[in-house]
């Protein structure tokens, strides 16, 4: 590894170096990600777009440490995921990465508030601090008053906002969002994206989306298009906001 590469891996929010993911299956193996090298700087608001099967979700899972690459290396916040044990990967996800999923994926047995503060509970943050952080996010996202509701008693948009609060409550370096607006109507999607942009601007959290949604692509300040597991284009659309 050269000095320049080292500098990139240390400073970038995410850096992938010739990453491959090959799924072994009959009759032929499938290369979902084919030697992708990208760098995402801290505070970027990036969308990865592409048709189904282009490798967006697989790349997101690789960056989130949910699956391991077949070849290549991935650095998140300066740490090489390839050398980490499952336990260290879990710790990394807890401390550095927030996830937002298409299907919301809130824990059904917990209330909205408990779901939102779940990572903070795992991190052992004291109750006062937890409540302070989460209450503020509930206020900002218009969810105040719904803290004690179970996910089943919330609308899709409300559930997704709780999922976003859960993703950012621990102030991770990176939030990975896989089709976060796919199940939402346009008004709710816009509201959610407003909220994510605001959090990106104010907290400096890096957002990386995998999406089909033109609204997300439109708002992204950088758009990476994937085709057949490879980067087809990487376009910086607007300057990063001044903070």
């Amino acid at each position, binding site marked *: 590894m050269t000095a320049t590469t080292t500098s990139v891996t240390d400073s970038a929010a995410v850096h992938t170096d010739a990453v491959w993911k090959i799924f072994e299956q009959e009759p032929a193996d499938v290369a979902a990600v084919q030697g992708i090298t990208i760098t995402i700087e801290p505070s970027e608001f990036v969308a990865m777009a592409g048709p189904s099967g282009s490798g967006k979700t697989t790349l997101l899972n690789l960056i989130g440490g949910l699956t391991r690459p077949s070849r290549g290396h991935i650095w998140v916040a300066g740490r090489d995921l390839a050398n980490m044990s*499952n336990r260290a990967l879990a710790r990394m*996800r807890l401390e550095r990465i927030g*996830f937002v999923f298409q299907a919301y994926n809130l824990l059904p047995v917990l209330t909205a508030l408990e779901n939102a503060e779940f990572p903070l509970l*795992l991190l052992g943050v004291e109750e006062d601090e937890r409540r302070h952080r989460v209450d503020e996010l509930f206020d900002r996202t218009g969810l105040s008053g719904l803290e004690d509701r179970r996910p089943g008693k919330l609308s899709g948009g409300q559930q997704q906002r709780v999922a976003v609060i859960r993703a950012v409550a621990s102030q991770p370096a990176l939030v990975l969002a896989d*089709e976060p607006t796919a199940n939402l109507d346009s008004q709710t999607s816009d509201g959610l994206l407003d909220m994510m942009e605001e959090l990106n601007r104010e907290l400096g959290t890096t957002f990386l989306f995998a999406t089909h949604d033109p609204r997300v692509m439109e708002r992204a300040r950088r758009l990476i298009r994937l085709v057949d597991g490879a980067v087809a284009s990487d376009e910086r659309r607007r300057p990063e906001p001044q903070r």
Partner: protein
Amino acid sequence: MLRPVLMARLALRNLRRQARRSALTAAAMVVGGALLMFSVSLGDGTHEDWIESGVRMGSGHIAIQAPRYQASRKIEDRLSSAARDAALGALDAAGVRQRVVQTVPRLAVGGLASSPNGARPAQVVGVDPTKEADFSILDDKVVEGRYLQPSDRLAAYIGAELARGLQLELGSRLVLTAQDAEGDIAGQLVRVVGIYRTGIPEVDQAIVHIPLRTAGSWLQTNDEVTTIALLLDRSRAVPGVLRALRHALSDEITASNTTVLGWREAMPELDAAVKVDDLGNYLFQGIMFGIIALAIVNTVLMSVLHRHREFGLLQALGFTPKQTGGLVVIESVVLTTLSGLTGIALGTFLTWLFFRNGLDISFTWNEDWSFSGVVLDPIIVPLFRSARIVQGLVFILIVGTLASLYPAYRATRIDVAEAMKFER
């Protein structure tokens, strides 16, 4: 480290959420716990009854004898007067006196009982009539006449089979012949004052009770005896009293003047019978809980497979695979503990409710049942012991934990990316 409170909260809420599945698993454990307590209480009650009968018919919960007497059964292996005094003195030792209900001296010798109609081998036991009546159940088994009384001298209390064999009746004369303390053959004429029937052939054919004074003078042993038998308030006190007595009599034991035997050593056949019966009960319980464990494995495994996405999510949020498996184990242990406790309480209550006066199974047999000198009582009274509740709970906990290990292992092996795939 993950907060245990969070794990417990998640486990409890998941159990509540999966109410039907939890109820199915709990039902298996409730039934198992109830059956466990039911069978253990009846088993313990049966064994206590066997032991009670055995020690009263035999040499008590604890027997103090000369070291070689247990094997030889000969009069020369009797306790000396000094050893007898030391033994009686030891009964005042701490941990002994409060447990001893009755103490009886016995002088037993193997000999011959003869009448004009024949002769039979007999085990002649010289007893203190008053104390023996409190101690033994032989006096309760009288079918003709009466048991010995303190004023009796040349009286004998004999079994019905011996009476039949020698054609003896109440008032008949009987000659007892045995080797005395000097090694000479000596005879003693006695008269039948009572006839008993225990249902144990070897007892009814051979055991003859005569007054201790008569036996001492006939066998020239004066106040020396072969056994000092102790009856305790409960059989579970035997190990403690044995330790205390052996400590108090350590000088006599070291000098080979005395030995102190518990009923398990003095009556090895009864000990073996209790152990074999226990083994049978444990096997039954093992098989029953094996089946219950399989049911738990099945329901918990189904739960893990059904909650694939949830476990994937937990790992995506920062749970390690080990913590995910730990959650499955905690859920299973919480469920089995709660249901096991319920089952144990239910089993204890049902046993008390239905069988507090004993379970009468006399309809299953037509005549007396006996073995190893023990008369079986057809009424089984369950015995409740708090230790059994703790043991039952620990056993259930172990079963619950073991049953959750494979499902927990499966939870640790979840492919998180696969589990989080969006299903349209």
